[in-house]
C-alpha cells in the first residue's frame, strides 16, 4: 500500500468496492452522502478519494437493491439532509462480501509475494 504523501488513488475504485465501503461506513449508524464520502476518505488515510459524482448513483443503486434505506433528517448544521441506513439484508450482504474480499486480498497477496521473493 502506498503511504502518506503519495498521490491518492482516484477514480479507480472498483464499483463493487465502493458499494462495500459505503455499506461498511453505514455499520456505524445512519449518515448522509456528504458524511459517507468524507468518512471513506478519512478512514483510508485519504488514499481513497471518493468521486462524489459516482457516490450518489451508487447510493441509488444500493437502495434499489434493498441493502440500504433512506429517510429525510436534519443535519448537524440544522439542514434538511437525506440519510441512509443499513438494512438487515445489507448487513448480511456486507458480511458475505467482506469475507470474499478477504479471500481475494489473501489470494492476490500470495501471488504478489511469490513474485517479489
Amino acid at each position, binding site marked *: 500500500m502506498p503511504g502518506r504523501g503519495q498521490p491518492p488513488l482516484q477514480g479507480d475504485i472498483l464499483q463493487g468496492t465502493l458499494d462495500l465501503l459505503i455499506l461498511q461506513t453505514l455499520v456505524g449508524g445512519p449518515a448522509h452522502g456528504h458524511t459517507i464520502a468524507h468518512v471513506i476518505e478519512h478512514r483510508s488515510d485519504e488514499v481513497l478519494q471518493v468521486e462524489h459524482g459516482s457516490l*450518489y448513483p451508487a447510493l441509488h443503486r444500493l437502495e434499489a437493491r434493498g441493502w440500504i434505506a433512506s429517510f429525510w433528517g436534519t443535519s448537524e448544521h440544522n*439542514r434538511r439532509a437525506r440519510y441512509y441506513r443499513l438494512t438487515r439484508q445489507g448487513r448480511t450482504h456486507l458480511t458475505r462480501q467482506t469475507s470474499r474480499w478477504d479471500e481475494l486480498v489473501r489470494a492476490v497477496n500470495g501471488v504478489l509475494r511469490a513474485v517479489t521473493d
Partner: protein
Amino acid sequence: VRGIPFRRRAASRRERAQELQAHLEMETGDNIARGMASDEARRAAHLKLGSTTGILERIDDLERVPWVDGTWTDVRLALRGFARTPAVSLLMVATLALGIGATTAIFSVMNVLLLRPIAGVRDEARLASLEREPGQGIVDIFSYPEYRDLRDRTRSIDLAAFRRTTLDVRSGGTASARVRGDLVTGNYFPVLGVQAEAGRLLDRGDAHADVAVVSDACWKTRFGGDPGIVGRSLTINGRAFVIVGVTAQGFDGTYPGQRDDVWVPLDAQPIVMPRMSAGVMDNRDSRWLQVVGRLAPGVSAAAAGAEVDAAGQALARLFPSSHGGRLLLQRGLGLASDDRGEMRGFLGLLFAGACLLLFVACGNVGNLILARADTRRRDVATRRALGASQGRIARQMLIEGLLLAMAGGGVGLWLAPRIILAVGALSESAYGIGAPALAPDLRVLVFALLVSVSVAVGFTAAPLLHVRRASLVDALRESARGAAGRTTRLRQSLVVAQVALSVTILIGAGLSWRTMQRIHAVAPGYATNGVVLASYALDLQGYPAPAAARFFERLSASLAAVPGVRAVTWATAIAPVEFGGRRSVFHVGEAPPQAELQRREEELGIRADVTFVGPAFFETMGIAIARGRGFTGRDRAGTQAVAVVNEALAERLWPGEDAIGRDLEAPPFSGPGLGPMEVVGLARDTRHRSLLSATPVPVLYLPFLQTPDQRATLALRSAAGAAALDAQIRQRTAALDPNVAVAAVQDLDQYVAGTLWEQRTAEGLFGTFGLLGLFLAASGLYAMVSHAVAMRTREMGIRVALGASTSGVVRLVVSHGLRLAAAGAAIGVLIAIAMGGAMRHILFDVNPRDLVTFTAAPLVVLLVALAASVVPARRAALADPSRALRQE
C-alpha cells in the same frame, strides 16, 4: 397506467436534486471552515461533485427501463419543440408528405399489378397460367379449338378458359351500365376454387344456358343485397340471363386491381362480344381466350409444364399453319409475363421520378433542420457540457426526425391513392385500377414505414455530424453568425442537389409533354373527335345478312334525323378500335384457286386489312378521298363490284400508276367471292392500326351493301358524346326491333386516349412531380439565400455605408444564388443525359435527348431561381445600414 410512475419519478428527481444541493452546501461549508474564501469554496465544491445534471441523468438511467422512458421523454421534448415553430413544422410535414406520398403512390400501383396475390381463389400456388413462348404473337391468348385440344390431351393439369370483356348490363327498370365480366368455361370456378356466397357458381352443365353469376359488389349495389337474388333476371347486351349465384366477397376476378362483376358461359360469346366474327368457336386461328389451370394433386409444376408443352407440340404437327412454338406454364395468376415486364419497366420509370421528388423534399426538410440545428448548436453544446451524453443527444435528434417522417408518411399514405386517381390515366386505362384496389394493405404500410424511417435517418445524420463537433467553448464563443457559417457549406450542397434533381424531373416531364404534343399533332387521317360508336350482332336475332343490311340502312337514316347528328355510317370494323381481318389482294387473273388460298394464304398476293363499309363512310369518318369517289347507297348487290384502296395498297398493286378504273381480286378465305372489283376511289393513308404507328398499312375498303354482314359497328358524327346519344341510339334501335341489343356505345376519342395511357400517365405524373420538385427546390433556394442574407446583414450594412449601391448589393446576393442554381442545373442535365434512354419506350416522335427540353427545363429552373434570389436580395439592399451595423 404509465402516468403514475412518471409523476412519482418527477418527485424523486426533485428530491435527488435537493440532496445534491445539500451536499454542495455542506462541502462549501467544510471548505470555508478549512479557510477558503466563500467564492472559491463554492467553486471547489462544484468541481469536486461534478455536473449535477450528469449525476441526475445517470441516476435516471439506472431507474428506468432504459429506452422506453428515455424515448418518451424525447418524444415529449420533440413535440414541444415542434409546437414552438408550428409553421415550420407543418411545412416540413407537408413537404415530406409529398415525397413519401409520391413514392407510395407508385409503389401501391406496383403492389396491385405485380406483387399482390389474387384474392378469393384457393391455393394460388397450385394455379398456373398458360403462355406461348415469346415471338409467337400475344403470349397469353389461345383459340378455342387449341384450348379444347390441350385440355383433352393433358392429365396433370385441369385447364379452364376465360375471356374478360366489357358488357352492358341492365336489371329491372334501371339504365344500362357498362361493367367488366368474363366468358368462362364450365370448369372455371372449380379450377380457381372460388366459393359461392349465394346460390351456386357456373359448372359444366351450364354450357348452353343463358345463366349468369354476379359479384358480391354487383349483388349489393345493383340488387341491394336482395336475398332472393337467385332466379332474378339480368339483361346483358339486351339478352335476359338468369342469375344462379353470387361469388364470395373478396373475389374480384383474376385481373389485378380490377373488379369483374358478371360471369357467363363461354357460349354466350355472340351476345357478349358481338364484334367477334361468327364461327370463332371453331376457328383455330382466332386467338381470344386466356387459359388457366390447377395442377393435379401431387404433380409438380415442371411435370405439368412438360406435359402441356408436349401436347402443344403434337397439335403443332397436326395443324402447322395454326399452331407452333413452345407452350409454358407461368406460376399463379396475374399479368402475362410480357405485360409484367413492360409494366415493371414503366412503373420503374415513374418510381424513379417519385424518388427524385422525395430526395428534393428531403433536401428541403434537411435544410430546415439544419437551420434549426444552427440555432440549437449552443443549446446542444450547453447540454453536453452539463453532462448529457452524446448518445442521448443523437437519440433525441433521431426521434425528432422520426416524428416528422412518421407524420409526413401518414399524410403521404393518405395522399398516395389520391395522386393516382387525380392523374386519372392509370385508373381509366386498360390497366384501370380502382380506388378500392389502391387502399393501402400491409405491404404498402410497411413500404411507407420503411421510406419514412430511412428518410428520418437520412436527414438526421447531417445535423448530427454537425452538432457532434460542437464543443461548449466554441459554441459559447461563437456568435450566431459564426456558428451558422459551419452549416452553410452543407446547406449549399443540399440546394445544389435539389436544383439538380428537379431539373432532372422537369426534363422527364418535358419529354412526356412534348410526346403528348406530338401525339396530338398527329393527323391520323380520320376524325377522332365527335365520333360515337355502337355495335350490333343481328345474327343473335336470326337476321340473315341481307335483312341485316336493310336494318343498318334504316337505322342509319333514323339516327341521321336525331338533332345534332351530322352523319351516320357503319362498317364491319372501324379502325383503330376494331380489326376487321385481312385478305390477300391480286391483280385480275392472278388469284389462286380457293383451296390453294386456304393452304398458303399468308404467302400469296398483297396482304391488306379489309373492312366492309356503309354509304358515306369516308365522309362520316373524315377519311380523305384523293382521287375518284367513295361508296354511295347505289353500290349494292347486283351492281358493278367496286372497291376503294388506300395509297399504300395502290402503290403495292400498281407502283407509280393510277389505280382508278383498274380491277383487282380479293377472294374470300371461304364461300363465294364477287370476282373482279373495279377501283373507284383512292383513299389517303390513315393510322389504321395505331395512332402511334406511322408506317402505312395497305387497306382495302369494300361496300357493305355488296357483301352484307350480320355484325357491324355504327358510327355517328356528332358534337354530343356517347353519354348524350346513348338513350337516342337505344330508343331508335328498339323502335326498329325491340329485340335487338346495342353494345358498347363509346366515344372514339376516349378509346384512342385509352390506348395512350402510358404516355398520358407519364405526362400527368412527371408533370406533377416536376412542378412540385421545382416549387420545393425554389423554396429551398429562397430559404437558403434568405438565411445567407440574414447572416450577412452586417456586411451588407458596411458595404452600403461605404457607398455600395443598392443594385450592387442585390447583384452580389443574386449572383450567389444563381451560381448555386446554375451548378445544380448543370448537374441535373448531366443526370438526365446519363439516364438517357430510360424513357425511350414511352416517347413518341421525341428524341430522348431532345434539345428543346434539355434547354428549356434548366432555363425554367434558372428563372425561378432568379426570382427566389431577388426577393431576399432586395430586402437586404433596402435594409437600413445603421440598424444592420447595430444588430449584433
